[in-house]
């Protein structure tokens, strides 16, 4: 009985698809586009060899191949998702280019996007990618067994309908008109011939199963005892002749080895077991790059990503610190010596952020935030009535010492705060530090039990989002760190989110930022910006290292900026031969400032 009913549902579902296909007719007058499809990803590279095993490291071995749920390994998740193509993708300069779609068109209702799927698109097991796969994906995500509740919720709230017109044509309709329509309707298909159904056993069943994908690489080896996972490039990958991806994805195999800690990773690199390693710590980078191996084939890269900076700094809690007058707030801003932090910890290579949204092109406004200045701070404190200093040198007013208690979570923040604490004494401000660890930190953010917090947000992809940070809705979620409850700001943010016109949104974005900065609860911190790595020189990079702003030139699979490096076997052979080596310059040191902005 159960079997039957299951079958009925299944037949019904596929029947529904065929009915749809028969009855639905594409609207006329659609303007089809294929975006930035014609742009090659890396014009600088002429001819590169497509070979080599590129080995990178992870700090832990994944517990599952699933990309959903709390146990998912973040690095593996990225690798798998980058190879599980969606309809379109965007590069970091705003251009949308096709992946599985070949063309798209926006409907007149401004809620629907029509997609034509590339007829060449194939799953890694040879099946054709069809409209059904997208419909199945939408249905699966909506199903109550889908392991990612957030994704399910989003999909239920935002996507109204996915329609199939023929085997290669679908449309996705949103519930509301929205900006970034292409980004929102960008579905990723699921292989309906392989998964068939999402049921309660989904997680168990697909824990270690390799699901067919559409991207350039697929997992070909998982060695749990030797601790690595390999991705192999597909020989007859359906998109390999696309202009966009011609010079991308050059390594034959990309392997990820799990190693316990940074020391072991460095030793493995020295023994040529790894192709590159990333070095966050600047002192370590400077020290290690003096190693003799850098005369024998090691290269160093310092790269400025050019992407929007994270929104990082000191957020004063407007609820807890409501006693701060305007003068006091400004005085406090003048008491934070980030210049000295930069000197002491970042060897003067960091940059002071110019606001919460630094690097979003026309979306950002850049203000002159108060710099450390003991004279100005002193003047402001005096005006606010904090005239005398106590035995510790801290300003007092009515028996009360001028203190600010800052909550922080990260060890790296701690080092910065120590310096700030020492420096703030000069203006007569006492900074108390309170370290709070991960989960408790989030809890405290939600309840608002802090006077100030040192924390930040990872950058948003395209244009700034203000809802989380400055809207009063963010107070309960613990993302409105300053706990600003300002009706005018709320109104502007709501308007910004609903607005479709680019010009109006831009203007609103500027107004929102101005308004929020005027309130004065945020003191911007520093942005490290540089990304440092050491690599073996036979892994070559184009010039510039990344053709567009990207988080790293060493990304493996990202459709827009991944896999641009390639293997130079001749160079490796030459470096191993003393006579040939003499002709090659002894070290390679790349400092890539292409995307640097001041």
């Amino acid at each position, binding site marked *: 009985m159960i079997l039957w009913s299951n079958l009925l549902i299944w037949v019904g579902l596929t029947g529904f698809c065929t009915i749809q296909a028969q009855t639905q007719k594409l609207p006329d007058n659609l303007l089809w586009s294929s975006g930035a499809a014609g742009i090659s990803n890396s014009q600088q590279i002429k001819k590169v060899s497509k070979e080599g095993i590129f080995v990178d490291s992870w700090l832990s071995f994944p517990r599952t191949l699933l990309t959903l749920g709390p146990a998912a390994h973040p690095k593996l998740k990225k690798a798998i998702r980058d190879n599980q193509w969606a309809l379109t993708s965007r590069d970091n300069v705003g251009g949308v280019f096709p992946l599985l779609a070949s063309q798209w068109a926006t409907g007149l209702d401004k809620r629907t996007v029509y997609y034509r799927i590339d007829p060449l698109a194939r799953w890694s097991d040879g099946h054709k990618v069809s409209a059904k796969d997208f419909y199945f994906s939408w249905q699966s995500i909506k199903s109550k067994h889908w392991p990612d509740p957030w994704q399910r919720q989003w999909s239920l709230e935002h996507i109204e309908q996915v329609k199939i017109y023929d085997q290669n044509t679908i449309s996705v309709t949103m519930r509301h008109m929205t900006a970034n329509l292409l980004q929102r309707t960008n579905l990723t298909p699921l292989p309906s011939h392989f998964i068939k159904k999402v049921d309660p056993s989904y997680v168990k069943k697909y824990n270690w199963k390799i699901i067919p994908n559409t991207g350039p690489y697929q997992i070909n080896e998982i060695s749990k005892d030797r601790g690595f996972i390999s991705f192999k490039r597909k020989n007859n990958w359906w998109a390999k002749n696309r202009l966009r991806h011609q010079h991308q994805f050059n390594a034959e195999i990309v392997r990820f080895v799990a190693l316990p800690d940074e020391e072991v990773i460095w030793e493995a690199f020295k023994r040529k077991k790894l192709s590159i390693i990333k070095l966050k710590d600047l002192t370590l980078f400077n020290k290690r790059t003096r190693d003799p191996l850098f005369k024998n084939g090691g290269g160093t890269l310092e790269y400025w990503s050019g992407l929007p900076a994270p929104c990082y700094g000191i957020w004063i809690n407007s609820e807890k610190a409501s006693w701060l007058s305007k003068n006091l707030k400004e005085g406090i801003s003048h008491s934070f010596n980030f210049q000295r932090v930069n000197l*002491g910890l970042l060897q003067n290579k960091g940059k002071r952020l110019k606001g919460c949204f630094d690097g979003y092109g026309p979306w950002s406004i850049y203000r002159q935030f108060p710099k450390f200045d*003991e004279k100005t701070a002193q003047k402001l404190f005096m005006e606010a009535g904090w005239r005398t200093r106590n035995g510790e040198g801290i300003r007092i007013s009515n028996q009360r010492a001028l203190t600010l208690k800052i909550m922080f979570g990260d060890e790296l923040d701690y080092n910065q705060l*120590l*310096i700030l604490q020492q420096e703030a004494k000069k203006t007569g401000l006492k900074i108390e530090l309170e370290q709070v660890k991960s989960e408790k930190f989030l809890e405290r953010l939600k309840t608002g039990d802090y006077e100030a917090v040192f924390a930040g947000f990872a950058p948003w992809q395209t244009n700034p989002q203000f809802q989380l940070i400055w809207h009063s809705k963010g107070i309960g979620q613990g993302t409105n760190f300053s706990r600003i409850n300002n009706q005018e700001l709320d109104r502007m943010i709501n308007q910004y989110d609903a607005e479709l016109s680019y010009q109006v949104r831009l203007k609103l974005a500027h107004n929102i930022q101005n308004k929020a900065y005027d309130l004065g609860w945020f003191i911007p911190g520093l942005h490290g910006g540089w990304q440092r790595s050491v690599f073996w020189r036979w892994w070559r990079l184009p010039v510039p290292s990344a053709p567009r702003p990207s988080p790293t030139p060493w990304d493996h699979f990202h459709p827009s900026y991944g896999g641009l490096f390639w293997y130079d076997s001749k160079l490796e052979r030459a470096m191993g031969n003393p006579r040939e080596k003499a002709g090659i310059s002894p070290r390679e040191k790349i400092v890539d400032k292409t995307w640097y902005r001041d």
Partner: protein
Amino acid sequence: MKLNPTTLKRLKQFRSIKRGYYSFVLFMICLLLAALAELWINSRAIVVKYEGHYYFPTYGAVIPGTTFGFDYDYETVYRDLQKRMAEQNEDGFVLMPLVPYNALENDFKEDSYPPAAPSLESKHFLGTDKTGRDVLARVVYGFRIAIIFSLILLFFNYAIGMTVGSMMGFFGGKFDIIMQRLIEIWTNVPFLYVIIILVSIFDATFALLITIMVFFGWTGLTFYMRTTVLQEKVKEYALAARVIGAGTFRTIFHHILPNTISLIVTFIPFSVTGGITSLTSLDYLGFGLPPPTPSWGELMSQGMEQLEVASWIIISVVSGMVAILVMITFIGEGIREAFDPKKYTTYE
């Protein structure tokens, strides 16, 4: 003060054990130096003579820069004052401590970045750590905190442990049995994990750490005390005291306890080392005293992290720690030998 002949004999015996005795002298010197750390490791000057007046900034309130003719009103940077006075040939002098840095300040140079290697010229005799703080200052102030921590811990552990232990021995019966079982259960709680859990719930402070560690530490001495009191309470002097009419409290604390002193004294040095190592390991794991308190554990974890870059950090802190622990162990060994009852007891 007149000491009783047994104690004098024991002290003499202790002095004759050279290793223990010299360790004791050295350790006392270390303690004294640590207690007076502000006088030889400090960013404040010891004496300043300026315009005919003498200033002693070491202890006491901040003296603003304006007092010495600077244009700022925060605490005077005495190193600058010394330099200025020397350069401009001003009347007066600044006497700086041997190490002119405190344990919290970050010293950044214009031409190099921390951590800086040990150097006589910059007066960072053991170099600086990764945020430019003087390692020697952190080691000495860290030692001071560790030893104070350890002694406070010892006091409470012993006060509770001795009282409960003697009561168990003295009263015996149900009280003894119930307490024994309770302590057995209590000692089987893995206290390091409990501390880690508690510290991640509450914020670690000096008082909280002491409280938690006393909470789990007092049991250590109880069983030894119980056994000794069991032996002592049936001896003639104890019975005599009872007969004369001494109460329970008086019998335990005035008569029996002094006779268990050799046991207690023997345990003390090892409890001190225990206290130091537990605090250090907690700090090392990041569950110890809140930053930026100078601590050996924090220096150690930093030293491990910066092993390739700044080996002086780990070398300094490990040598300091090994030296102190070895000294205390030698002292403990000396005391144990000196208080060995077999030396003075004759069995008939």
